[in-house]
């Protein structure tokens, strides 16, 4: 085992396991689950081992195809600090979620299919992490989209699940189109798609700042789609139709972080295009605040967490936009993966206890029925809300500090979003676990089996402690803004935000039987979904109707029907030459030969 081979083993074990599960899965559920677990476990163990290995020289890179002298596509791995950390996050979270899924999916149909999908997802995600060039990353980027589609649509017989899968796929396609254009622009400008070569050749392009800015913003569109930033965030809440482990692993901890990871990967390029970074920061900040607003009025326990995810991803994107090193955003990605995964697992545990009820106003009083889940949820919530000295506190505050220093307006905006975060998550906590039981199911809820609790407990520890300074130093090289520059008001304000949000929530929701406040604007997600719906129905629908008309009457009739009928008519006419008399054929043949002779002579 060497540092050369380990990444390849990490990458391809999940693919092999996905294939094996699809082949053999129908024989045994245990076999499918253990195959998936073995693959994830191998990846996890190797990632931890690899993290402490020095990187020796250039990594192996295989020629894939050569498209002329200009474009040589390779399949290769990058193994630097960034990808090592991301490997750790992805594989470790995967193992925990896989274990949790053993319990969560125990009575579900499509058990093997589910684990095959998870393995395929893991393979694609690891491909993004390890890719050493844009083309390979793009391929795995799309593979992640496919596995996400498969997993969201796991209950494909349910219309809403199938539609959510389609929506996720199509919305991502919009972002990916920009991403692809951006890759092409960069390639056109530098003649390479390999990250290391790109970063070397970028200073030569700094002369054309507008060109580079456009390319970077187009690439950022990939992030907007995959990391669910405004205005392409609509798919993420709907993707909660998938099984909860999927929401936890893909739509909270890892896959949606791929966009942020990709930005971190090209951070040296972004550094020399300040305009692009400013746009990135604004989109991140606005997303962060708007998603937090939307989260305050949802009643579906998973959707609240989904909007929270969008909001937290907004922080990370903002971090890329304002901080001088990508590690600031990666640090938040790291802590967010821990506590958001935990929150989703806890929510899944509640759902199982509630027989798949997701409306929190039908729950209540679960603290006595499911105490372990409640404690786990509570710890994850503290980290998310930024309770002092939990992991989320360290990472989020760092981003807010940088934002306040660089773009003050955005900084104060996301500081307010931190207050909203505390408010909406405590609201969920109080409504679900406190008060009186509001339905039959809530009265008879039971605690979950050990396979589900253990991953949650592990994640709880991580959620609280993953941000401690010695861990920060071990995994990241963080840079803090100068003390002079940070307003002295900021930290007290953040404390106030946390306690204020939590307190207000407690005041309003601690014993509420129904929501005491109602803001339709937020409940309806700022009406963005409605705008899209209107757009798709009227404008895009009209275009589709026109194209369908054109297809039927122009393509089908003129291009397809006319030549086909013409050919048929010619064939019908020529059939009368088919006399069945060989001498007639000989006559035609002879006439042809003589005609040819005359043509030859006359030349």
């Amino acid at each position, binding site marked *: 085992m060497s540092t050369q081979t380990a990444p390849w083993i990490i990458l391809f074990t999940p693919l092999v396991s996905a294939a094996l599960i699809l082949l053999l899965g129908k024989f045994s559920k245990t076999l499918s689950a253990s195959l998936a677990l073995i693959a994830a476990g191998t990846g996890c163990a190797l990632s931890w081992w690899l993290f402490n290995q020095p990187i020796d020289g250039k990594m192996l890179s295989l020629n894939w195809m050569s498209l002329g002298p200009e474009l040589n596509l390779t399949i290769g791995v990058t193994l630097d600090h960034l990808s090592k950390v991301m490997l750790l996050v992805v594989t470790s979270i995967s193992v925990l979620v896989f274990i949790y899924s053993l319990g969560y999916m125990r009575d579900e149909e499509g058990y093997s299919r589910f684990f095959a999908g998870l393995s395929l997802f893991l393979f694609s995600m690891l491909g993004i992490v390890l890719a050493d060039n844009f083309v390979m990353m793009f391929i795995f980027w799309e593979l992640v989209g496919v596995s996400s589609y498969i997993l969201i649509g796991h209950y494909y017989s349910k219309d809403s699940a199938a539609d959510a899968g389609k929506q996720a796929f199509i919305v991502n396609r919009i972002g990916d189109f920009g991403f692809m254009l951006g890759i092409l622009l960069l390639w056109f400008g530098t003649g390479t798609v390999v990250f290391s070569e790109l970063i070397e050749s970028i200073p030569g392009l700094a002369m054309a700042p507008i060109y580079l800015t456009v390319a970077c913003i187009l690439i950022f569109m990939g992030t907007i789609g995959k990391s669910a930033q405004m205005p392409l965030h609509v798919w993420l809440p709907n993707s909660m139709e998938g099984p909860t482990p999927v929401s936890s692993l893909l739509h909270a901890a890892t896959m949606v972080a791929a966009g942020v990871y990709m930005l971190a990967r090209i951070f040296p390029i972004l550094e020399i295009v300040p305009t692009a970074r400013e746009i990135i920061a604004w989109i991140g900040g606005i997303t962060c605040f708007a998603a937090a607003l939307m989260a305050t009025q949802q009643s579906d326990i998973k959707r609240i967490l989904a909007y929270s995810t969008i909001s937290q991803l907004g922080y990370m994107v903002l971090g890329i936009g304002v901080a001088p090193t990508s590690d600031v955003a990666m640090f938040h990605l790291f802590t967010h993966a821990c506590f958001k995964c935990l929150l989703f697992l806890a929510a899944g545990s509640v759902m199982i206890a509630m027989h798949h009820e997701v409306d929190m106003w039908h729950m209540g009083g679960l603290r006595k029925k499911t105490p372990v889940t409640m404690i786990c949820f509570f710890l994850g919530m503290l980290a998310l809300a930024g309770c002092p000295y939990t992991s989320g506190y360290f990472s989020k505050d760092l981003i807010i500090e940088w934002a306040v220093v660089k773009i003050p307006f955005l900084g104060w905006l996301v500081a307010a979003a931190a207050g909203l975060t505390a408010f909406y998550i405590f609201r969920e906590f109080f409504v679900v676990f406190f008060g009186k039981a509001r339905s039959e199911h809530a009265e008879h809820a039971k605690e979950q089996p050990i396979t589900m609790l253990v991953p949650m407990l592990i994640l709880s520890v991580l959620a609280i402690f993953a941000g401690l300074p010695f861990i920060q130093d071990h995994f990241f090289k963080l840079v803090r803004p100068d003390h002079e520059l940070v307003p002295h008001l900021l930290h007290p304000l953040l404390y106030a935000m946390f306690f204020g949000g939590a307190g207000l929530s407690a005041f309003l929701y601690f014993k509420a039987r129904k929501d005491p406040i109602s803001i339709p604007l937020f409940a309806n997600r700022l009406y963005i979904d409605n705008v899209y719906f209107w757009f798709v129905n009227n404008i895009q629908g009209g275009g589709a109707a026109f194209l369908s008309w054109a297809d039927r009457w122009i393509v089908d009739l003129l291009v397809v029907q006319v030549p086909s009928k013409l050919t048929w008519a010619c064939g019908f006419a020529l*059939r*009368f030459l*088919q*006399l*069945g*008399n*060989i*001498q007639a054929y*000989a*006559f035609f043949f*002879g006439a042809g030969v003589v005609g040819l002779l005359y043509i030859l002579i006359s030349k």
Partner: protein
Amino acid sequence: MPTLAHYLIVSGLLFAIGLGGVLLRRNILIIFMGLELMLNAANLSLVAFSRFNLLADGMPNYNGQVLVFFIITVAAAEVAVGLAIIVALFRAKQTTHVEDLNTLKF
């Protein structure tokens, strides 16, 4: 002395007679004989060309004769197969007249 043109004219006439036989006769056997005449006309041309184009050593170009040899061989094979087909056809239809063999048509 006969010239190359003489040989070619005779060859062409023989070919024309063979072609006429193929086009006009209705007995499939006679049509077959017409085909043989046409092959022979081609042979005559080839041998004449071979004789009239001497090589550097003053001998005829034997490549032409080798080709004729091949044609004769193939013709022998063709006659054998063709006649076998005619026999099979006669067994099935009890006729050798091409006008009666016209089921392959629209």
